């Protein structure tokens, strides 16, 4: 029961946060330059007084600000994120269309960075101070310090332009009429560079954290006990040290998943990946504010959902959380 109430608490907290972000959004739209009605009218391609009146009425822009706010919030509760005049479609439908691509990319990068980060961390922790450790440490430092978009461009330069191994952009070959397995392989080839680019930074974090935890754990009493009992070193490393060292890493990864969605804006832009991030960038370029802020809201919602999922997994994995 305790776990359940904890989770309910977390979900309520998440909803509260969303509510706050939606409110922020509402005021940001109004902070954007120009009369919102004129902006919308301009996007629709006609600025005359008659049209302005229609837009004002339609969006309740002549109502008191609090009432407008309530209309906006209750619209969001019904998943009505507004209308993009530039794209002639509802914001929700535009985002929904792009969501799968973003999820595929984020999940791939999430898994990849966790697996590679932990592996490198374990390798580095085996003999602190060794050449392997230093090499991995240096690599992690570079990945941590270099801007993600720059690493992405460098990857394109090397793997697409110089070597010609991987496609530089898009999510499938244009014009190639692939089916079945071929189509899948084609998609996977397109996924490689974006996944790498989005992962670099997180690989660095997870590597360093795993390494630090592994080293800290191997000093712990229970590990020493196991060793005294004569358990094999590999077994000790895997069964005792890694298992315990991993928990905080996974927690961090869960918290970072939300940020990864934010990072996807950059990756999707560089690789012309047709996800929500790219949509957000395009909206930004065209200053399609209703679309931009709608996509922002969805990004934030995804981050919150990832956090809650992390909490759920955490409560299931770690008995100490049973408050």
């Amino acid at each position, binding site marked *: 029961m305790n776990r359940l109430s904890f989770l309910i608490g977390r979900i309520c907290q998440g909803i509260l946060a969303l509510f706050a972000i939606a409110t922020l959004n509402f005021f940001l739209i109004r902070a954007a*330059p120009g009369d919102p009605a004129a902006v919308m009218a301009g996007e629709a391609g006609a600025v005359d007084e008659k049209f302005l009146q229609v837009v004002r009425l339609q969006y309740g822009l002549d109502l008191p600000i609090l009432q407008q706010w309530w209309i906006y919030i209750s619209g969001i509760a019904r998943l009505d994120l507004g209308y993009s005049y530039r*794209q002639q479609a509802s914001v929700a439908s535009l985002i929904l269309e792009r969501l799968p691509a973003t999820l595929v990319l984020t999940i791939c990068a999430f898994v990849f960075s966790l697996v590679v980060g932990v592996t490198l961390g374990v390798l580095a922790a085996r003999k602190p101070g060794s050449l392997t450790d230093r090499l991995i440490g240096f690599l992690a430092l570079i990945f941590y310090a270099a801007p993600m978009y720059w690493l992405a461009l460098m990857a394109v330069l090397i793997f697409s332009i110089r070597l010609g191994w991987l496609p530089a*952009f898009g999510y499938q070959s244009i014009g190639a009429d692939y089916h079945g397995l071929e189509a899948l392989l084609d998609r996977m080839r397109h996924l490689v560079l974006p996944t790498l680019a989005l992962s670099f930074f997180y690989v660095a974090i997870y590597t360093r954290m795993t390494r630090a935890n592994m080293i800290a754990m191997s000093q712990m009493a229970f590990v020493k006990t196991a060793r005294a009992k004569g358990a094999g070193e590999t077994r000790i490393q895997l069964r005792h040290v890694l298992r315990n060292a991993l928990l905080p890493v996974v927690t961090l990864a869960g918290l970072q998943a939300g940020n990864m969605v934010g990072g996807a804006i950059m990756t999707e832009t560089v690789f012309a990946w047709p996800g929500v991030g790219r949509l957000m960038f395009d909206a930004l370029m065209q200053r399609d504010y209703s679309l931009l802020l709608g996509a922002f809201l969805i990004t934030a919602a995804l981050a919150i959902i990832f956090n809650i999922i992390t909490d759920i997994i955490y409560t299931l994995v770690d008995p100490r959380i049973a408050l």
Partner: protein
Amino acid sequence: MDRRAFLKLAATASGTAVLSGVPLMAAAQAKGGVLNVVVQPEPPGIMIGIFQNVPSQMVGGNIFEGLLRFDADLKPHPLLAESWESAADGMSHSFKLKENVLWHDGKPFTSEDVVFSLDKMLRETHPRVRNFLTAVESITADGPYKVDFKMKHPFAPFIQSFEVGSMPMLPKHLYEGTDYAGNPVNSAPIGTGPLKFAEWQKGSFLKLVANEQYHEEGLPSIEAVYFHVIPDGASRATAYETGKVDVLPGGSVEYFDIERLSQLPNTEITTKGWEFQGSQCFLWLNNTSKWVSDKRVRQALMFALDREAMRDIAFFGYAKVAPSPWNSSTKYYTEDIRQYPRDVEKAKELLKEAGYDGSPIRLLPLPYGETWQRLAEIARENLSEAGINVEFTATDVAGWNQRLGDKDYDIAFSYMSQYGDPALGVARLYTTSNIIKGSPWNNVSAFSNADLDALFDAGAREVDEEKRARIYQDAQALIAEEVPLAWLFEMIWPTIHRANIKNLISSAVGLNDSLGRARIE
């Protein structure tokens, strides 16, 4: 085009040579083939009576037709009208319609459709038509195949407005008495053109197929056209390289990709098909702002700008430095006016005379992407070399619209269509009556000069070609002296296509009405 009575003979004759030559040859060719064209961005709708933006025109202009078609010299040719005549005083015009023209749903096209389209529907849905029709007293049908226009006063470029993008003919039997914008026919439009609507998969492609009942013998010779929606510039270039698309319309790939693509085998590049739009890029100069209101400062700006460098660097050579505020495709264009070759010393001198003290001058770049950003960066550099302290104002499209509308700027980039005739696309940038707050598409410079107003006014009503030419040459000379705005480039949007596609562009609006006449060899 002279306004002699009854041009039937001349028009039909030249029409056969330039336009109708195709079917004769095509008849000997094997028919068939599919055209794959890029459309960028995806149009919001293709009913061009309602949607007038560029991508809508490109698709819809092949479904619908105007009464006339125009060649690269902007000479009219028969289309839905087989002949037309204008009174010598310009106070009346009458069109004889082609018989046996059918709408895509099989109903006959008659004078009733013309009257309905112009007098009822387009008046409401098409702002530019409203403008054309201000000079019109009445539009009446005289039998099923004749339409008469009575004018309040002569409007010289009247005939020119019967192009498909400006005045598409719409089916009365489907639209009369309906809510035009909400009519379900809009999503599967019915026109008279050589291609008819087949399918639209949003976000992917739009398909038109051959109209088997088309009113010109032997046309169309292709089976279908696919318009592909590919949202990324680099992907569009790749789509051409990999053979998925055969035609890259102007503006669909980045300027720096054009050179590489045009070198590909079986590829042709053409800059034709933009004569009617004839866009010119220029700098708005705010004649109400402190320093720019001084003629000497405006002239200094012209002298300071390195337009050759801008052309080469920002447009990779694909632009033409404009010797006149008129585009060379716009009527009565002349280079015999004051010219402004780059001369930094002269610019400095003029600025000194004007007493310019180095206070900041705000520059609004056009927020349409990288090319325009680079262009503005070059301009800023050019101007600062002449000692002008330029500051960028970062804006988005909405902010840009608003600032220009409110005249809250010093200098600003823009480009606008001239529609081939000074009365259609040029006068609006200069006349005092067009200084209207709230829109970025009128006399945004707020330049006001009674002599120039008089010239534009006389030019629009003058029906004598020679007199009209003299009026507009005077206007150009006056503008070149006063520099109400800084004319920079004639825009060039090259079309890249496979060399085995013939007759792809056969009019002054290019792909917008030519696709149904193309053939694949």
